[in-house]
């Protein structure tokens, strides 16, 4: 028995999108003809590069929560844990196009890659230039020398922020693409799962994490991680996650980073802070300074118990773009 707030599981995505647009009507609107596309009220901006993303549902507030001023212009919404259609990506691209081209910044999943490829083909006929960046920040999903096989996880949020900020400066499509690529290249992420998630249409956990154990390196849909091991104390987990994401970061003492610690849906908020307490100490021990920290449910996986840690290495350009003003439902703001 699922203890969840659901109607017909087949309707959950439409209902989520509808409720989201109702709640955040000051910032976003539904595409007039495609109920699986959400568009910023500021979009399109003539002469500016549009920023688009999209992905499966069940990760709320990702992806649609990052639509807003100075972040993402339009988002394509898929079924739960399933890529949006090519049509939806194409409609999002069309909605975001202000005549200067559109950067599609998405995660490295086969379905998304193929649907973006198709969508790009569709809008090319209409003369819309598209550049893509494929996020691959999840270090546990493949070794470094096969980085193009790594999946995209919460680092995507920082990629969108940087890409959106660059677009807001009036940069060209190539410049926006380069900034977003630089952003995701500067990100390393790793997740830990303590309890699995249940897809509404399935009604039972779609993988297993035995009580007393945890899955280190878990993916955002429950993809198996690097290892299953006995559940340890929060501080040990924090240390381990930090090691996993820092191993490929070669940062001199005094360098700045941005940190994103996201709950996966059913993790109590206070425990995110328990972990963050230790993570920031670990960064300080490495001589690093946290320029900005985001702690909360930023990129979830339905009701999974777990977290994703993302550390982004900052230089002057990324810092300036990261700090640029923006507004989107998932970033809150009054």
């Amino acid at each position, binding site marked *: 028995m699922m203890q969840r707030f659901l109607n017909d599981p087949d309707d959950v995505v439409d209902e989520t999108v509808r409720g989201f647009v109702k709640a955040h009507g000051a910032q976003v609107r539904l595409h007039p003809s495609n109920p699986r596309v959400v568009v910023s009220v500021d979009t399109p901006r003539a002469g500016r590069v549009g920023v688009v993303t999209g992905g*499966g549902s069940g990760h709320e507030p990702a992806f649609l929560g990052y639509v807003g001023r100075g972040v993402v212009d339009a988002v394509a919404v*898929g*079924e739960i*844990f*399933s*890529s*949006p*259609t*090519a*049509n*939806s990506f194409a409609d999002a691209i069309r909605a975001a196009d202000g005549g200067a081209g559109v950067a599609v910044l998405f995660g490295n999943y*086969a*379905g998304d890659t*193929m*649907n973006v*490829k*198709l969508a790009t083909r569709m809008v090319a006929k209409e003369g819309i230039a598209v550049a893509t960046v494929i996020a691959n920040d999840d270090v546990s999903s493949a070794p470094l020398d096969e980085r193009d096989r790594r999946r995209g996880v919460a680092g995507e949020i920082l990629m969108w922020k940087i890409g959106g900020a660059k677009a807001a400066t009036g940069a060209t499509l190539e410049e926006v693409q380069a900034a977003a690529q630089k952003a995701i290249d500067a990100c390393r992420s790793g997740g830990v799962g303590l309890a699995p998630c249940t*897809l509404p*249409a*399935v009604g039972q956990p*779609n993988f297993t994490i035995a009580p007393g154990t945890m899955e280190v390196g878990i*993916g955002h*849909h429950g*993809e*198996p991680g690097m290892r299953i091991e006995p559940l340890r104390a929060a501080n040990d987990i924090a240390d381990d996650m930090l090691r996993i994401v820092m191993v490929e970061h070669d940062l001199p003492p005094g360098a700045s980073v941005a940190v994103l610690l996201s709950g996966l849906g059913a993790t109590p908020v206070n425990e995110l802070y328990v972990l963050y307490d230790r993570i920031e100490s670990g960064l300080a021990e490495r001589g690093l300074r946290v320029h900005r920290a985001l702690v909360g449910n930023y990129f979830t996986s339905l009701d999974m118990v777990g977290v994703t840690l993302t550390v982004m290495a900052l230089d002057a350009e990324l810092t300036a773009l990261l700090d640029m003003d923006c507004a989107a439902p998932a970033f809150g703001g009054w």
Partner: protein
Amino acid sequence: MALANRDLGAVVAELAAVIVAHKAWLSELDGRIGDGDHGANMAKGFARAADRVAGQDLTLGAALAILSDVLMGEIGGSMGPLYGVMFDDMAQALEGRDVIDIAAVDAMLKAALAGVQAMGNARVGDKTMIDTLAPAVAAFATHRDKGAEEALARMVAAAETGRDSTIGLVARLGRASRLGERSRGMLDAGAVSCCLILTALAGSLTKRLD
């Protein structure tokens, strides 16, 4: 073989009927090593396409183009683009043809394989629908001299062998690849649906030849 290329919309309806009838089975297979939605994804797309072609006098190419549109436009995941491109490229291979002859079927099948490979970059042995499609297309080409009925039968036999070969394979692409060795020992859902489609297509064409 020389089939007038009109009133063939029903072929898509026949493909759809087979897919819808196997919805639960396809999902169960996908559930073992994937996320369990293959049957639902496929049945939704094919049933909608069947609705759209119903009662229309269509060429095979036009009907396949409608099927492709529905899959690309309304079905996300991997199946939308993979089968979407497959049927789109099949439709394009038939463009301008008044009759469906052996050369047309051969061209159509080769286009299907090229389309899926271009979109998904899978190769034989990756444990995907390609393991069904590639040997089936090759078998038809090899046996086209033996006449349509025989060539189609060879194609179906090769599709079945290809489908069954996925049992012994480790998935290297798609969701099942997460499982590594644990994906061995199970049929691949896409290989099964692809075999169903090719078998139904062969049946629909053969039936109309008689």
